[in-house]
């Protein structure tokens, strides 16, 4: 039977995962443990949910060839404003309004996708236009820039609510949220079971399998992280509603990019558009899909963000696109397309989120936070580029050689 290597995968993603752990550890020391307090973890999730959501959509666009979508911030604002008009001004049903807002997102995306995919307008230009148009439209429907709020409770819970926050059990002398405990354990059980079943199937069909050691390490490590997270959540009010939305999106899009034919086509387009075309990939269709999907995702983020602000504001979502783009690149996506993963984008978004949150806890100014985030982006990408070029290896060789020459 053949065995796989112990670890495989994108080197930059692994590096950034390690970097994330280091950053968390650093802030754990600097904030005297505050960063891992149950309440702060719930805050971290609520604060950063929209960035992760947007990064998911952005990744698909970036995969198609390093193309970005500049309009997502404006889309967030526009959809939030629509939600406010429907629910607060016109008093429509909350769920109907949510559905309608998602539909609006899809339509905005189809508009941009049409110009990009079928009219060959560069995505940068098309979405720059979208950024201006949708922002302007937001101001128009908010009657020149009023902030509309507050939303009813049912809508707010999209972003600030928790699932069954009041069912508590006593465990280890602590009062824990029952649902969080059950869900946490369930996820671990399901995850481990799937790993084992997959490995068995592979063995049966005579394919490569993980070594038992790698399998155990993988299961223990991931289970530990999940249990830790859900334990912390259980100590506070339980599972945030937005975590459910986030979890579903991450699972669906991870599956889509890694396991489906369509997902594979996205990578092929970004890797070599002409080769993809000659292989029968419908490239225009896929570009149209990527941008339609981006605006759909932005609409979800818009709904979540409006619920978090508890109002629709004309300045909502400004520079969100930049956070999403940065997350993807920090998480290992190539600026030329063709490489990058959803998990990478998640790690990238978490690094930015933890940096923000940690520095806020330390009382550092917003301005400094921007500087740090910017530098982290540059460093993450530079590290990757430099390691690929073997700049350091060449430098070392050169130095060794000069030393030899001097001796001689």
């Amino acid at each position, binding site marked *: 039977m053949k065995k796989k290597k112990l670890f*495989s995968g994108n080197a930059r993603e692994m590096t950034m995962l390690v970097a994330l752990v280091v950053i968390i550890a650093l802030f754990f020391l600097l904030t005297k443990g505050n960063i891992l307090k149950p309440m702060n973890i719930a805050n971290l999730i609520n604060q950063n949910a929209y960035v992760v959501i947007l990064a998911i959509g952005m990744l698909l666009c970036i995969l198609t060839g390093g193309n970005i979508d500049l309009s997502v911030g404006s889309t967030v604002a526009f959809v939030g404003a629509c939600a406010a008009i429907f629910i607060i001004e016109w008093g429509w049903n909350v769920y109907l309004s949510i559905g309608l807002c998602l539909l609006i997102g899809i339509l905005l995306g189809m508009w941009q996708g049409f110009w990009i995919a079928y009219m060959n307008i560069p995505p940068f230009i098309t979405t720059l236009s979208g950024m201006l148009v949708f922002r302007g439209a937001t101001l128009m429907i908010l009657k020149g820039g009023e902030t509309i709020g507050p939303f009813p409770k049912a809508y707010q819970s999209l972003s600030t609510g928790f699932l069954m926050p009041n069912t508590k059990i006593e465990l280890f002398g602590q009062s824990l949220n029952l649902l969080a405990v059950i869900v946490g354990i369930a996820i671990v059980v399901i995850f481990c079971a799937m790993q084992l079943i997959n490995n068995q*199937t*592979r063995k049966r*069909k005579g*394919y*490569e399998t993980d070594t038992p050691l790698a399998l155990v390490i993988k299961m223990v490590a991931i289970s530990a992280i999940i249990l830790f997270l859900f334990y912390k959540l259980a100590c506070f009010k339980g599972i945030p509603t937005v975590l459910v939305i986030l979890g579903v999106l991450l699972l669906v899009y991870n599956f889509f990019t890694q*396991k*489906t*034919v*369509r997902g*594979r*086509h996205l*990578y*092929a387009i970004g*890797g*070599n558009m*002409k*080769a*993809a*075309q*000659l*292989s*029968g*990939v*419908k490239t225009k269709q896929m570009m149209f899909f990527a941008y339609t999907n981006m605006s759909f995702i932005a609409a979800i983020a818009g709904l979540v963000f409006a619920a978090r602000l508890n109002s629709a504001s004309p300045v909502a979502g400004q520079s969100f696109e930049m956070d999403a783009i940065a997350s993807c690149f920090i998480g290992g996506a*190539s600026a*030329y397309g*063709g*490489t990058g993963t959803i998990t990478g984008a998640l790690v990238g978004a978490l690094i930015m989120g933890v940096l923000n949150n940690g520095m806020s806890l330390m009382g550092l100014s917003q301005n400094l936070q921007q500087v740090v985030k910017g530098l982290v982006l540059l460093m993450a990408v530079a590290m990757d580029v430099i390691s690929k070029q*073997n700049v350091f*290896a*060449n430098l070392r*060789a*050169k130095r060794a*050689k*000069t030393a030899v*020459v001097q001796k001689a």
Partner: protein
Amino acid sequence: MELQNQVELEQTVEPGQDIILEMVNITKEFPGVKALDNVNIQVREKEIHALCGENGAGKSTLMKVLSGIHPFGSYDGEIYYQGKLCRFKNIKDSERIGIVIIHQELALVPYLSIAENMFLGNEQANVGVIDWDATYKKASEYMAMVGLHENPRTLIKDIGVGKQQLVEIAKALAKNVKLLILDEPTSSLNESDAKNLLDLLLRLKEQGISSILISHKLNEISYCADKITVIRDGKSIETLVKEEDISEERIIKGMVGREMTNRYPAREHNIGEIGMEIRNWTVYHPLYSERKVVDNVSLNVRKGEVVGIAGLIGAGRTELCMSVFGRAYGVGISGELFIDGKKVVLRDIPQAIKAGLAYITEDRKGDGLVISDTIKHNITMSRPEFISNHGVIDKDLETQYAKDLRVQLGIKTPSVEQLVGNLSGGNQQKVLVAKSIFAKPDILMMDEPTRGVDVGAKYEIYEIINDLVAQGKSVLMVSSELPEILGMCDRIYVMNEGHMVAELENKGVTQEMIMGYIMQDSKGDIGV
């Protein structure tokens, strides 16, 4: 062969006796690989020195060391140029004393004019202000020297590859070149452009300019080279001198380390029914829609048959294949296509693939492969439905398929997870072939299937082609290398300027005959 006869005639010129370049014990290591291992080479003045070796033997690395792309200090050994020890820090250092390298991928800017390209980085300027009059005047002079008759204001994108190559050489002349290094200069040229280029090198030799020529094309080497240094696995194996022992077989023996008796594997000819037939096929240019690129062409390929299409570059061969392949090229396509006797209409590429057609592009990096992706993802790209269920990919099955094809085609790599960009040219070409075989085609259109591939890998690709026809598949092969066409094909079509000018049963056909058909039509005579 005609080329070789001319070699004998030009034998009268005595090469200069002074050594212009000597590279001594050059060793270059990359992390984990010894690319060059004590390589020695001597080039005399007024000499064309060919550098031969399989892909990955270290030819290009050696030339990068010589031109300063790998700077002094990153390699061991010594370079003497005109008797002086040289330590180049970068490419400017080597150019200053007259060593100019012309890369395989031309370094010209398509939207700048010939003159602008020629003086790029070497502008005719006074304190940073360009003197355009001087630029164009000098450009015309150098263009005349290389025999390029164009307006120096013409944009590079508007002239053919053959002429672009001449611009590169003119550019080198403008830098006062003494030693010209050409890395596979003819790989994208047709036979007449290639000969034109080699003749230019011979003329330049008379004027005192030495050349180092890296080439896979052995007939070109024996045509113009005075000496040949053979490199194998990073070592300089031997230097052959023209008068004594230059023959194609001799060079191949040095390159591969074994005598290669037959460059084209034999196969049993077992030809069946017509697999694909094209009738009255006409294609117009996608941008200039009044220009006919393929004009009323008819051809057929039988099962178990290898059919070649010979012709110059620009004759419409690639365009013909691509337009058949689901209208991947051209507009206003008319004509009839029959597969297994049934008339079919293929509107797009997915339809063509489903109908059992495969097109293997001549430009594997540009149009064929996703260099940044793994071997297995590339292989399965055109028919993901074979490894998926309702659009969900079975990755284990995919790996299995890829491994089987790796073994079947002899792709030399430890793992199918390897990135295609890390493979040698020959192995990349095999991945490209594997990719089309994976799609289970009945008819394979192979466009320059051995371009930029070394002799050993070429033989393996020919064996793959033989396997395919033995399975009853039809192969339509476009090739600019006439020996390959003659060595591999059962039947040969010749195309010229969009027309089909000849159909030849491959019995007693010679290169000269095919060349004759090509030249005949372009002189205005009516072909077949």
